[in-house]
């Protein structure tokens, strides 16, 4: 690896001050797993890394309240996995974490990093989107709120400025909503997904009040499948409706080919798994292929 400098500020504000909106060679690092992969692959050569390890501890806290969950951006995914509050209020996240990468990565990777990296293959972003999560983003000019749904601009691209950091993630109270996430792998059983489908649905039995369905991995960024949702909202789910929803999802999506699947194949996968994810969400269970 090409040598670089590391700074370890002790506050979020100090970290932001070290970032430069015009200098792409200065980069913040959370757990570091995703960034280290890029650096070792030679895809990214930082001059300076700004570690967020030592900022205020409130940014690694999980708090549950009547308005939902507040999760500090530096919270390790392993902490989320072990959290009773997360299991109680958003069991979809607990289930999803079980197959997210591996235990060692989860011990180190952070929820803020999982979002800020903009990687379309990751499992948490589509799930957080489907849950209606929002973030507090902090920059030199102060704070702003941003929906996770509005975070991703393109392939490994977010709308964040280079000197903005995610401080906190808020997941609203889910009420009676149930969710599912399908992580579809096409090589070995444990792998990056070829397609991810997250569905969070509020329903009375099979009568859908509202649906939020998000696809990832097969698309260049995590994407809400709005036309599929529109077909379901206010309707009772039948096999025929599921089929239509799957077709609508494919029609509205743009796919990227990779070693895990060609575009035509990913279209087929999306049809099948949008269907399966909706059915699973109505029952509140995750699926693996």
């Amino acid at each position, binding site marked *: *690896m*090409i*040598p670089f400098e590391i700074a370890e500020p002790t506050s979020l504000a100090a970290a932001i001050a070290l970032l430069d909106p015009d200098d792409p060679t200065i980069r913040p690092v959370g757990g570091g797993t995703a960034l280290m*992969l890029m650096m070792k*692959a030679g895809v990214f050569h930082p001059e300076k890394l700004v570690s967020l390890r030592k900022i205020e501890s409130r940014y690694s806290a999980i708090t549950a309240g009547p308005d939902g969950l507040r999760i500090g951006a530096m919270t390790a995914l392993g902490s989320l996995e072990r959290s009773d509050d997360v299991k109680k209020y958003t069991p979809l996240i607990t289930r999803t974490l079980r197959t997210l990468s591996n235990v060692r990565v989860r011990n180190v990777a952070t929820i803020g990093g999982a979002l800020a990296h903009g990687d379309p293959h990751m499992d948490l972003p589509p799930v957080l989107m489907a849950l209606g999560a929002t973030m507090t983003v902090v920059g030199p000019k102060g704070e702003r709120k941003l929906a996770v749904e509005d975070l991703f601009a393109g392939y490994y691209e977010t709308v964040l400025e280079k000197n903005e950091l995610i401080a906190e993630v808020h997941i609203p109270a889910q009420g009676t909503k149930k969710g599912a996430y399908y992580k*579809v792998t*096409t*090589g*070995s*059983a*444990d*792998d*990056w997904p070829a397609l991810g489908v997250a569905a969070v649905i509020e329903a009375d039995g099979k009568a859908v009040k509202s649906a939020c369905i998000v696809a990832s991995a097969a698309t260049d960024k995590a994407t809400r499948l709005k036309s599929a949702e529109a077909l379901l909202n206010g309707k009772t789910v039948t096999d025929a409706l599921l089929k239509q929803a799957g077709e609508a999802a494919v029609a509205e999506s743009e796919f990227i*080919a990779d*070693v895990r*699947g*060609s*575009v*035509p*194949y990913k279209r*087929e*996968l999306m049809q*099948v798994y949008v269907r399966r994810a909706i059915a699973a969400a109505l029952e509140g269970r995750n699926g693996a*292929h």
Partner: protein
Amino acid sequence: MVTTLNPVGAKVGSQVGRSVPRLEARDKVTGRAEYTHTMRVPGMLHVKLFRSTVAHGLIKSIDTSEAKKLPGVIHVVTIDDIMKVLPHPYYGPAFHDQPILAHEKVRFVGEPVAAVIATDPHIADQAVQLITAEYEELPAVYDEVEALTSDVYVHDQLKPAGTFADLKHLKGAKNTNTALDYQLRRGDFEKAYAAAEHKFEHEFKTQKVLHLSFEPFACICDYKDTHVTFYDASQGPSFVRTEMARLLGWPENKVRIKVPYLGSGYGSKLYIKLEAMALAFSMIARKPVKIAYTMEEMFYQVTRHPCTFRIKSGVDKDGKIVARKCEVFWNGGAYADIGPRVTQKSGLTASGPYDIDNVDINSYALYTNLTPAGALRGFGVPQLVWAYEGHTDMMARALNMDPVEFRRKNLMREGREHTTSQVLKDAPIEKVMDKVTERMNWSQPFDKGTGTVRRGRGIAIAIKAVISPTTSVAIVNVSADGSATLYCGTVDMGQGSDTAMAQMVGEVLNIPTESVRVVPRDTDITPYDMGTLGSRSLFHMGHAVQRAAEEARDKLKALAKEVGEPEGSNIPIADLFQKRYGMQAGNVIGSGIYKPDYVSPAPGTGLSPNVTPFWMISGAGAEVEVDTETGHVKITKLINVVDCGKAINPKGVETQISGASIMHIGFTMFEKMYIDGGQVTNASLADYKIPGFHDVPDVMENLYIEHEQSNGPFGAKGVGEVATFCPSPAIANAIDDAIGVRITEMPLNAETVYRAIRAKQGRPLEDE
């Protein structure tokens, strides 16, 4: 514990046949086992390689000037620098076709072109980024069938090494990519095929996969002007010694190869890999140098042979195969490595374990512009079985015959001639098949399901001939306190050879296995062994070890007689030495050599009455579930049965079968090197997936039968590869059974299976 000369109550089979825990267990579970990749030698320098980005091209220039300026860089070398210390810098077991660094030409993407020798590996890395090279690109050839007739020639001229007689005639050959054309002719194929009632013709392909040993390639060379020492991750230190001595023009005894613990190999760490480079660099630097690969670099060193197998069979009206023609094209990559041996030694079993009077085999080793292919556990046989066992099932289905009964009608039996004309002995093919079908409950009806998930089952059987002739030498040393030490060149890379060999010593000397010390491989100490490969070690080195232990035992008895002990005395060995030498002093040394008889295949016919000292026989059965909506295949049951002759270490045999099964699930279901314009695009574990916990079938049975190998040590024979042959075709046959779809090319990943389903439905999926 006191070792005595004739222990009271000692019985045969007290050591052999025990599931002795591995002797090196403590080192491995405590993390203290030292492997070459993590070794450091005082004063050593670090090497990083600059590699070709072009698949085939003339080297116009290499600019190392910027790299040389980086502080900490000691040397930056190209082939020109190497030729100053080694005037003839070419190596290879079959052809001396591989230059230590690219010479005038590059022949595959990833070929080493220059090297940085530096004080620190990070500095070396940085310096490599500062090297530039200019190439005049040439057309490239990647496909093995195309390579046979292409006018794109990877090598201007063939350079046989002189080691193998059947390659000598190729010396100086030009305008060809064929490194070997092995032929076998038995009977009259054309006539018998023409007259056959049923004619079948199929083509099968196998993809490029690789070993990915978890200890990456590594080698340290410490060259001094009077002798040279290597610390080498090698399965064959004797070969390395011979070849390094040849390059240097030195006698063997000045070259020392030491092998620390070996973090597996599966055939990759054979012949010459990094050693010639390390030698040249150490000669130039006049200091120890270390080369240690990253995972990415593994993809540019050696792989398995991709293969196209065109198979034709003529079958009579009773379902008996009367004629078979095999055309096998082996994709050897840019340098031959051991490819010509794969081509011949496995080529001669290409027609399978079937009794067929009229057989034509043409087996071609082809050069292409890809990473060189070499030995990978199975040595070509898995690729052959993939084809012939798929072909067998297709014929059975077409003839409306049960796949098992069709095989039973045609398989070879004891006393009959194998295709090579060698009379088959100790090859219990039918017994193995019957064990598979018994465990598969083959005679019971099987529910294939009616919904979108369909189920199916399939079997496969196979044969391999161990390569011959090869030599092994062993020494057993009994010390003055009665403790025994074994010196043998077989490299334990996790297959348990040290333990098994120690068991044989223990059996002969009537001492517990755990008391025998097996020294690490060191060519200054451990005698000649051809190599730890091709399942040869248990048999060949086992014989040598048994002979060495017997000689030591006989010498101890003679010593007892010499000091006046009565016949059958149970004197402690230590007392024997005390009596003879007056104190705890002296050694008794026994040695043994083994080389089997062999008759070379006749040129033209490829026939031989004694082409192998033993046959490997296995069979597998698979049950699968196919999600017809997505193509995902779940292997719900995998049965793998081998004949091991005699299980020296039963647990060791089981784990060899189990490991081979799971490794081959990877090769069958999802492993593949994706290559675009000669460039590997998935050179990492993130994108080249290997089996993990969740890829292991729910039900796996790894079984052996013991049909005594009459000429084997204690009736045993090798099991390192035998379980690799049948899983792939058994799974493909099961998928065909489930959904009526025949896939002839691996991997059988979800997309491939789904596309095959759509094609069969008459509504194929678009390509892009």
